[in-house]
């Protein structure tokens, strides 16, 4: 099977061997769960329960706050102890529903379509996905039912399932593909049915041969193509995945659906399968807890809303001062100031680094070595964008396509002078948007 890839990108140290072979274990639910109303891209959800109500596991506790939004369900049975602003993963306070867990886990009734989901039409399937609160589990957390409803003038001919998991340290998707390969394949076929897309592709990086075998075996007898991708970061980026699998290039400023493709994460496909076949909403997800400061790294089925502090206790991890706590992977994850933030739908990993790995070296002058240019998968010139950002030359930054940057971090990873290029480019992008807003 030929190995497909894209131009640009870097080869960071993957450190996946620590958790790749560990089976996923369910994590005991904590006493208090914090479920932020805004765990997804789009409008925050609207709570449908009030303080004091008792809820069952799987019961909808918040409706989508608009078309681009997602429902939220109770991962445990218990009572609603509060609805108030609580610290969230991006460092701000956000309204959240706080559940007191009665540790009974009494479930509500679920009504799935079972195996003959193919008879149902796209609208009902899409509605089931929406009611189950499914969002992109790769880290973007974009409501899936919106992606399953492209505008009528866009015909989708291919659905790609992203099994690359190019982010170092994390093995959540890897374990999911091994442990529920049939769910992933069936999820893909459901998505193909909803979108009416004839062909389906599952892309998996070559450093997960066992997952490749499991998925190919599950996909025998179906027209689905399972391809092996080069082990390179950011192979999992949407545009890079499409160009690797289909040799198609998404035009600048356009979306994958403009070239007839929709990309979903393996976790999302499995969740869609469970929502349609068993009628189960998104209540928990696989989270890899790893890092140089974690003595017993592991993959857990963590219920949404579980505080990170609770998860760390389970792995006997003490947050040493001057260490680093990251939600997500080392390349695109967000560093946290403290651990009492909840695991949400987009949390694919909890990374805890010791001080020696956490401290960032101070930036030294740029020597124009061009390594960031070779690394950039979007073929931009990060060095120049950084200079424009520092000098607030906004029109030049826009002309140099700063908005194309997907903040994958390859440039800052490659930079020998340790210049925080992604942070600079983010500033430039914020300035460009602000300037555009001011003009309107």
């Amino acid at each position, binding site marked *: 099977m030929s190995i497909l890839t894209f131009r640009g990108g870097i080869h960071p140290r993957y450190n996946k061997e620590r958790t790749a072979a560990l089976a996923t274990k369910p994590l005991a639910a904590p006493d208090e769960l914090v479920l932020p109303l805004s765990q997804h891209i789009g409008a925050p959800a609207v709570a449908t329960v009030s303080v004091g109500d008792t809820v069952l596991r799987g019961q909808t506790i918040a409706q989508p706050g608009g078309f681009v939004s997602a429902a939220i369900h109770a991962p445990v049975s218990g009572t609603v102890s509060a609805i108030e602003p609580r610290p969230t993963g991006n460092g701000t306070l956000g309204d959240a529903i706080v559940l007191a867990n009665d540790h009974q886990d009494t479930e509500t009734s679920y009504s799935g379509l079972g195996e003959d989901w193919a008879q149902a039409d796209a609208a009902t399937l899409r509605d089931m996905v929406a009611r189950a609160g499914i969002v992109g589990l790769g880290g973007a957390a974009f409501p899936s039912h919106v992606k399953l409803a492209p505008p009528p003038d866009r015909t989708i001919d291919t659905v790609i399932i992203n099994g690359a998991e190019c982010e170092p340290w994390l093995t959540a998707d890897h374990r999911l593909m091994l442990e529920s390969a049939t769910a992933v394949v069936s999820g893909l076929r459901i998505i193909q049915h909803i979108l009416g897309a004839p062909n389906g592709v599952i892309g998996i990086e070559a450093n997960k041969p066992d997952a490749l075998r499991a998925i190919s075996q599950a996909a025998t007898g179906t027209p689905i193509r399972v391809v092996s991708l080069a082990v390179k970061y950011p192979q999992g980026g949407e545009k890079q995945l499409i160009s690797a699998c289909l040799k198609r290039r998404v035009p600048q400023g356009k979306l994958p659906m403009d070239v007839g493709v929709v990309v979903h994460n393996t976790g999302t496909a499995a969740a869609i399968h469970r929502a349609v076949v068993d009628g189960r909403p998104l209540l928990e997800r696989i989270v890899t807890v790893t890092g140089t400061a974690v003595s017993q790294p592991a993959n857990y089925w963590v219920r949404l809303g579980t505080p990170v502090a609770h998860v760390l206790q389970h792995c006997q991890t003490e947050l040493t001062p001057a260490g680093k706590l990251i939600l997500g992977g080392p390349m695109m994850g967000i560093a946290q100031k403290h651990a009492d933030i909840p695991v949400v739908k987009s949390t694919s990993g909890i990374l805890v680094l010791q001080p020696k790995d956490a401290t960032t070296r101070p930036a030294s002058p740029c020597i124009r070595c061009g390594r960031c240019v070779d690394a950039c998968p979007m073929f931009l010139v990060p060095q120049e964008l950084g200079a424009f950002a520092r000098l607030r030359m906004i029109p030049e930054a826009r002309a140099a396509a700063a908005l194309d940057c997907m903040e994958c971090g390859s440039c800052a990873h490659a930079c020998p002078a340790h210049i*925080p290029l992604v*942070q600079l480019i983010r500033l430039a992008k914020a300035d460009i948007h602000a300037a555009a807003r001011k003009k309107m």
Partner: protein
Amino acid sequence: MFTNETLLALAILGSIGLVMSVLLSIGKRIFAVETDDRFDRLMDILPGANCGGCGFPGCSGFAQGLIDGTAKPTACPPGGPEVTVLIGEIMGVKLTPGEPMVAVVGCAGDHSAAPPVANYQGLRDCRAAHAVAGGAKSCAYGCLGLGTCQTACVFDAITITDTGLAIIDRDKCTACGACIEICPRQIIRLHPKRDEVHVLCINPDKPKEVKAVCTVGCTACKLCTRQSERLVMDERLAVVSPEVKADIPASCALVCPQGTIFDLRQYALSDWILDPAARRDFEQRQEAWKAEEKARKAAAREKKSASKAKPKAAPDTNTDANAEPGTDATPSAGGEA
């Protein structure tokens, strides 16, 4: 005296000059382009700082805007009233100069008052730090002190104290708004120059949360609003309201338990923030004022109880009662943790 040589020279030069001038006059007509002379006169009177305070790219952009009518003559903050009047003369419009304004940083929580909770590493830029989990500061609204406003200020009116707080020099500040626009937390606000009292806090959270993150934050105890009508509550924040026309007595600053209210007449801003001696002096005067206030109230109460003992008056509508300190604990000395 006119040897034929000079005559010859005159002839040559004259003929060339003649030919050239004919050529130029033809050229003048072919390439005629009219320009507006007011542009140059405007450029002379504008300060030339290119600070962008008028919203135009530099002074030449502003002058061009004035000529094609898209710019308001009063829109040049550094120029202030004199420039506005001069613009009026050139453009032939009678103008009344705007009221002089000054920018004030709405936060006094430096590293000592609002200690950092995490160790921020990365760009020394407030907007960058704000985007990374709200920077290292415990308060999500407070000044990060990384100097972005300092670099943005063309008139270098802003200095960053080594305890990480921005201080604006009232005399140098020309209210051009560059710092206001660049501060990621909109802490810097424009106030009329004649205002002497400012509330140095913009954290609208509940008192419990404000106290947890900062020792000089406004905990909405409403005591200052009783000292002057000019201080009103905007949700959980005391603010000096621009509409109400009333003066603010020195007691407003003294009554505030957290020491959030800054009174220009009593202390210079840099001393108020940096000099612990000024703070101690303020706390002593606060003690003295409270003791004297308690004595005054006690005296008022006896006088009232004395008057009540004589005739059985209507139920005691003692307006003084609500003058008692509000729901919060009695205003103790200075900002306790």
